[in-house]
């Protein structure tokens, strides 16, 4: 709660200084946005490093070791290297499309954090349609991938872009429907209220049998597909499409895609934590610590998937979504509705 206290203090300080109220609001929002941005950039860098370490240890290697303690400075060095790199635009590229694609991916990845509660009271804006906002914003990623695939004017990139469009559209459905099941129970679209409705551990939606676990698994699978990670990383698919949609990107543009991917992983984990794992709720520790522990645990699960499983083929992926995941999630939604209104397990 100390963090919130600091914010409140600064806010009051500004208000006391005699500025007009509009300005105070504006400065407060900008400050919060900058803080969230900085925090997420740090988290993304950390995740890159962490993924490398996790993969290395799963494969009985060391991973980066030479830069700092267990190579913790490695991603910083990598980011600096990418910044210095020549930014190549293919001559046949569709320039505006090619140029805007990584920016849209980047912005879309970060915008979702406006409504994610990092802790009790630690939220930029508690929208009453928070979850809807997230679903809408994260879908922007498809547009950026499609733009990248089209704008590069490369066959591999085009195949990758098309694959990602098909994939994200297919998996958006089970993901939203599994989220809906939670919303039905919580009775609110606001992230804060969803978290507040699962105060005790048995109230977490993952433990609300029988619909909770099913919704959670559906959500995790759909989220893996949404973030283009193995076993659903067919838009990139190094072994088939070389690098898929970002095959022509280099330098900072590539870094933006890369960071956006990791921010997206963190996003879906954060949403998963908020919806199913009780968000910031937890004893003894400060609320934001609980939030980060749970979120990183989920991120680790995603990484674990990535370094264990092979990749599905594009048609099998669609088949899995439409023939299995979508019916399952809809059935689960009906089940959740029945549970809510019949009063079973309604603790």
């Amino acid at each position: 709660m100390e963090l919130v206290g600091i914010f409140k203090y600064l806010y009051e300080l500004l208000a006391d200084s005699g500025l007009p109220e509009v300005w105070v609001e504006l400065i407060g929002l900008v400050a919060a946005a900058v803080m969230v941005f900085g925090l997420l950039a740090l988290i993304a860098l950390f995740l890159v490093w962490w993924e490398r370490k996790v993969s290395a240890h799963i494969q009985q290697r060391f991973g980066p070791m030479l830069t700092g303690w267990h190579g913790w400075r490695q991603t910083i060095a990598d980011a600096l290297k990418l910044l210095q790199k020549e930014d190549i635009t293919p001559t046949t590229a569709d320039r505006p499309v090619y140029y805007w694609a990584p920016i849209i991916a980047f912005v879309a990845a970060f915008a979702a954090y406006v409504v994610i509660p990092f802790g009790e009271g630690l939220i930029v804006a508690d929208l009453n349609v928070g979850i809807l906002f997230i679903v809408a914003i994260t879908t922007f990623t498809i547009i950026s991938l499609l733009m990248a695939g089209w704008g590069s004017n490369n066959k591999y990139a085009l195949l990758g872009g098309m694959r990602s469009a098909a994939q994200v559209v297919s998996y958006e459905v089970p993901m939203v429907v599994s989220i809906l099941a939670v919303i039905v129970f919580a009775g609110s679209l606001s992230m804060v209220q969803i978290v507040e409705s699962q105060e005790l551990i048995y109230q977490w939606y993952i433990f609300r049998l029988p619909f909770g676990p099913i919704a959670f698994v559906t959500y995790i699978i759909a989220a893996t597909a949404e973030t283009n990670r193995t076993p659903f990383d067919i838009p990139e698919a190094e072994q088939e499409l070389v690098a898929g949609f970002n095959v022509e990107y280099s330098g900072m543009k590539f870094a933006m895609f890369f960071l956006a991917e990791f921010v997206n992983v963190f996003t879906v984990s954060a949403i998963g934590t908020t919806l199913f794992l009780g968000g910031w709720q937890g004893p003894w520790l400060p609320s934001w610590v609980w939030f980060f522990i749970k979120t990183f645990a989920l991120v680790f699960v995603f990484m674990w998937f990535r370094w264990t499983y092979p990749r599905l083929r594009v048609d099998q992926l669609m088949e899995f979504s439409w023939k299995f995941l979508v019916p399952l999630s809809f059935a689960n939604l009906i089940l959740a509705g029945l549970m809510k209104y019949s009063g079973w397990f309604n603790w």
Partner: protein
Amino acid sequence: MVKKLVDAIKNLVIGLFTTGKHLGRHAVTLQYPKEKWQEMPERSRGIVVLLSDKETGKLNCTVCMLCQRACPTAAIRIEFEKVEKKRVLKDFIVDNTICCFCGLCEDTCNFAAIKMAPKYEFSTLSKEDLIWHRDKLQEMGRDVPYEKPVRKKKAVAKKPAEKTAGTAAKPKTTTGDETGKEKPKAQNGQTEAEKAKNETGRTETPKPDKVEPSKPEKPEPGGDDNKNKKDDSQATTESGESEKDSRKESK
């Protein structure tokens, strides 16, 4: 259908646990420039070196040209002049850019004059530096332990691989230029334990700081000469204990 689904989930989880199991294990790799194998296998074929007599410091090479003839890539060139009907070595050139590290030269040599030493770090900044001449080859070979072969009468006609076969005949008379300091060669019907003892006696002394063969910062080969001659005095052959199993550095 349900059984299939349960099986699928079960196997996915098994896969996760198998990779998860490895997460806690220690890495099997080495951090190369920092950690190295303490000791290369004795037979490891690295760079070609010329061996010289431990006492006199002279090269063992008798300019018989067998290695040059055996080389499949023509990486070896021997230059000699004839003094009183005897060949005298002028230069011995090994082109490491085309050497294929097959070890045929070592196998062919009957005088323990050329060897593929277990050294592998000899990268240079320019291609020309990889063409090594006699002096450089001799320096590289100073600290390489070897055993002088006991020559049978018709050793030249035999396939060289027989030398290591453990079937060599009893030690016989040696020729004049070999100063008779060699150990008796492994005999026929030798037990394995004896053989092992014999071989551990020949292990290379681990000298990590001396193993760097060519240092790019050194400008001319002439400067190399003097430095390495000083090093030569330190080149002692202590009999390595049986550290074969602990080749990886302990952590």
